[in-house]
């Protein structure tokens, strides 16, 4: 008996270890970000808002539980408890212990869990614009609810079983959405898989199916959700990813498989395989599915770590993160340059840590860019506090007042001197579970200097913060601020316009008063002087090493050009050796922003 029980527990333990390895080994930053971009307030207003959709109760609970990813291990622990319950219910639905089932069949009850795991690891960049509130837990809860309902129905005498349709569909659809629909499918499977003596009358099943089709439509169209668009309300009940720019079925596939694997449980007894074969097959499916569905992109996770470090003004962590890759995303480039600006190393390390950046690895139609990932953080650190507030406002409209945005609001309001505004958001943070005691770091001297260096104007960033900042700082000649002179020169180099470069260089060189210029500024001087010469009334100190490197770079390019290679081919061929220089960036780096 004990051995049998252990045999039933072991598959789940193995799966739990695997899930921990995946979620805590590779995705802890994603889980932290999940809670950081998750809106939940312990207020009546939030409860009313969230509950008013045909999945509202589970969304609300999902939002609440997602907070626990503040400590990823704690959140995963809660998930595992819920998954353990689902597993146990799965075994019950298989009628384990009754007949014809061997210990190996228990592994089949892991398949729904594998689908739920895949539904989390595949989220990708939708994490910044999740259309389903509380997604990280709500889908698990939906699965649990449908399993509970099915178990209840299974345990009920046949003649009363159809009453479960009333509870599951009429009673619960408004709160649990697709869980009620999965219940209906499960009832059909239960009917088909049961012995004739254990079947409901077919007319009762047909009645239940009819209720499942008609009731949700009535609820949405005429009853509870008649103040919402019909299609939108119906979709809210389903695990379907759609926002105002994108819609994809891709993220619904794990739930389709979840439905199939749940139905499979009722037919488990018909699978005649040896235990080890069945367990192996299930293990292969779980590992394979997790691998196939998971969004695997190091930049995606690095952006999250950098964003988190930026919230703590932890510039060294950002630079450590930046040094790990040669192909950072544009958001990473922006955050890295903020860190260098704060450590005073913009001119000496920026190109060594890459400035070209790559496009976001985005496998579906989702439109996403730096504006949604980090625009408030980027603008804030460049002293463009009103733009930071603006993008907090714009982003929270569609994506909720998550802790990330609340904290950015607080930091911005502190920097702009709007204390009442700050207090409102501190008050709201007080309504969360883990951020109630958070207080903003003081506004850095860097931000203060940047704020004071620019007078107010009205303009627009045309939804592109990178281009806005490049243009804004490359045109910021004439400032008396040493920091702005530095940024002016750096962004003039990024802009590649000699007309902007030379005044910026001149101002910076004068400020340096003969001291050795930072490495990249020396590099820029050499290549600009060669291609767009300018008369300077002083000698620019260039180290021998930089001069020699420049000669070597020139010889390499000349040699490859003589071999008949195109510009793109030369860029690719020289990337590894020279990507850390301004010369390479100027000639082969990214030009479109």
């Amino acid at each position: 008996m004990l051995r049998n029980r252990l045999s039933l527990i072991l598959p789940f333990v193995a799966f739990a270890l695997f899930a921990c390895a995946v979620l805590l080994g590779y995705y802890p930053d994603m889980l932290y970000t999940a809670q950081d971009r998750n809106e939940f307030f312990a207020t009546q207003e939030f409860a009313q808002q969230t509950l008013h959709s045909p999945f509202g109760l589970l969304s609300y609970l999902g939002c609440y539980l997602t907070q626990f990813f503040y400590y990823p291990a704690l959140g995963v622990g809660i998930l595992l408890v819920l998954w353990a319950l689902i597993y146990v219910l799965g075994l019950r639905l298989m009628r384990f212990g009754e007949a014809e089932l061997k210990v190996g069949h228990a592994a089949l009850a892991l398949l729904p869990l594998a689908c739920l795991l895949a539904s989390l690891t595949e989220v990708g960049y939708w994490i910044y614009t999740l259309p389903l509130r509380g997604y990280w837990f709500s889908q698990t809860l939906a699965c649990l609810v449908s399993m509970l309902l099915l178990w209840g129905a299974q345990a009920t005498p046949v003649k009363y079983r159809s009453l479960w349709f009333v509870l599951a569909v009429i009673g619960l659809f408004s709160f649990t959405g697709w869980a009620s629909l999965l219940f209906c499918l499960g009832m059909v499977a239960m009917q088909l898989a049961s012995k004739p003596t254990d079947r409901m009358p077919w007319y009762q099943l047909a009645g239940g199916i009819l209720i499942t089709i008609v009731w949700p439509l009535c609820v949405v169209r005429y009853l509870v959700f008649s103040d919402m668009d019909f299609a939108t309300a119906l979709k809210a009940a389903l695990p379907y990813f759609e926002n105002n720019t994108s819609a994809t079925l891709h993220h619904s596939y794990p739930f389709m498989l979840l439905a199939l694997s749940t139905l499979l449980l009722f037919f488990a007894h018909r699978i005649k395989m040896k235990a080890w074969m069945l367990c192996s097959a299930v293990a292969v499916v779980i590992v394979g599915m997790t691998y196939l569905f998971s969004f695997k992109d190091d930049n995606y996770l690095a952006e999250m770590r950098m964003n988190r470090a930026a919230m703590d003004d932890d510039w060294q962590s950002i630079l450590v993160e930046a040094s790990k890759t040669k192909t950072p995303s544009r958001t990473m480039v922006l955050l890295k340059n903020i860190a260098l600006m704060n450590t005073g190393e913009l001119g000496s390390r920026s190109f060594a840590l890459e400035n070209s950046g790559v496009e976001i690895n985005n496998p579906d139609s989702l439109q996403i860019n730096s504006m949604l990932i980090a625009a408030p953080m980027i603008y804030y650190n460049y002293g463009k506090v009103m733009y930071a507030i603006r993008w907090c406002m714009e982003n929270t409209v569609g994506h909720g007042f998550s802790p990330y945005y609340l904290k950015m609001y607080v930091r911005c309001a502190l920097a702009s001197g709007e204390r009442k505004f700050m207090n409102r958001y501190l008050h709201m943070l007080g309504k969360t579970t883990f951020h109630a005691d958070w207080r903003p770091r003081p506004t850095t001297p860097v931000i203060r200097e940047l704020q004071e260096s620019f007078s107010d104007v009205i303009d627009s960033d045309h939804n592109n913060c990178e281009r806005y900042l490049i243009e804004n700082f490359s045109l910021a000649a004439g400032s008396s601020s040493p920091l702005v002179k530095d940024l002016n020169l750096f962004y003039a180099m990024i802009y590649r316009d000699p007309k902007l470069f030379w005044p910026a260089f001149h101002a910076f060189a004068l400020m340096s008063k003969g001291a050795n210029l930072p490495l990249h500024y020396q590099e820029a001087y050499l290549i600009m002087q060669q291609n767009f010469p300018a008369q300077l009334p002083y000698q620019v100190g260039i180290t021998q090493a930089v001069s020699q490197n420049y000669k070597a770079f020139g010889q390499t390019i000349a040699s490859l050009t003589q071999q008949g290679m195109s510009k793109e081919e030369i860029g690719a061929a020289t990337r590894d050796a020279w990507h850390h220089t301004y010369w390479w960036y100027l000639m082969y780096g990214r030009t479109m922003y």
Partner: protein
Amino acid sequence: MKYIHALSTLLMMVIGVILQGCTSHPSVPQAFTPCDTLPAIYPDYTEVTVPSNIAPLNFMLSDTLFDACVATITTPDGEERTYGEGTKVIIPEDEWNQILTASVGKSMQVVVYAGQDGQWKRYNPFQVHVAKDAVDPYISYRLIQPAYGLYDKMNISQRKLTSFDESVIFNNQVACDQKQGQCINCHSYQNYTTSNMLFHVRVTNGGTVIVSDGQPRKVDLKREGLISAGVYPAWHPTLPLIAFSTDKTHQWFHTSDINKIEVFDDASDLILYDVKNDKVTTICADTTRLEVFPTWSPDGSCLYYCSCTRWEPDSTNSGDYRLDYKSLRYNLYRRTFDSKTLKFGPEEIVYQADSLGRSVSLPRISPDGCFITFAEGDYGYFNIWHKESDVRVLHLPTGTFVDTQEMNTPLYAESYPSFSSNGRWIMCASRRDDGNYSRVYLSYFDGKKAHKAFLLPQADPEHNIIRLLSYNRPEFMTEPVQCTLEDFANAVKK
């Protein structure tokens, strides 16, 4: 909706009964330290004048400074009541109504005790004056996140001022394609009643929903030759006519000014829409001028509006709107209107604000026709984002300003003022709570001055902090909107 209404009514009754049973009447602290200041209660209801039919003025103390609050309210008949739940003072509606009745034309006295770790402070008492004049029983407003370019969920709601009942008139989800989105705005009523009203719908299923004699229909007001469809509306007080401005609007964003955003017109005109005949005529379309915010005199004989000279690049300016936007200043004008011929008279100036370096917007006339209220700022017309913007009241027969100092704040924007139907209350949208979220404030107007404004009361005073939505275009109504959300949705979908 009926199902929801029935359920929510039942739920509210149950909650009401429970709350009734739970109403806290704590004992007054016996030991306390006197504090020679007024209490810092939120909302600030100290020394305000309120209508004789207003909902309970629930308030709270900061929960970061205190852990308990007790308030005693003494009515002129000497009866004293005590309230306090945590740091909040929540007064049951029936008891509040008794307090109001006993205080009409007089004042109630409130003493606040603030507790922290068992230690109490007693603050100086303050008065709440109860005017004999009632306020209109309903107001409506748009609830919207104060974003600049993007929008998601928004609705136009109505609130019963004598209680805390709030219901949605129309939202932007019921007749909307999620991908395109929908904006709803500019709700407007004829002479405070709702059988003739309108609001605009933009983007998905766009048009203007006009309720005429209780029947809603959607109209496309973008006609040949107009700058745009109708924008800022004003119903004629008695005839089925609506004046609109038509506007070509732009917005830009501040880089460091906490005003954050600028909205201004590049072109604007005034039109008149004949509801019965679906006919649009032009009131004024001078391309060298910008005209906006029409409003009728109560007898319908005059149309007031704001206007300024259209900005043109010349030698005195930079040639760039973004640098010269502060030179756009609107004055107040009017034209007579002949309701028989539907003809307008020549333009005459009412208030030349630009000569004082000021700019006016959103004018409204008092029901007796003697006063005009408007928002006034340093430039432009989008005063709700101009921190210097104040509500002003001009006495039309004498051309003198009424004292509105107590109703305004020096550092935060007040805008969108309007008179109640008895002319005794001025309502405005103010950003004084935090500079960003606009809230509804009401001020008693006795013909000589506008008294200290008070925040629209809520069942839970904290609601004013945690509702992350702005109250937009507060409008008085003498009755609730008759059409249902479904009626409007059907009209919009057509």
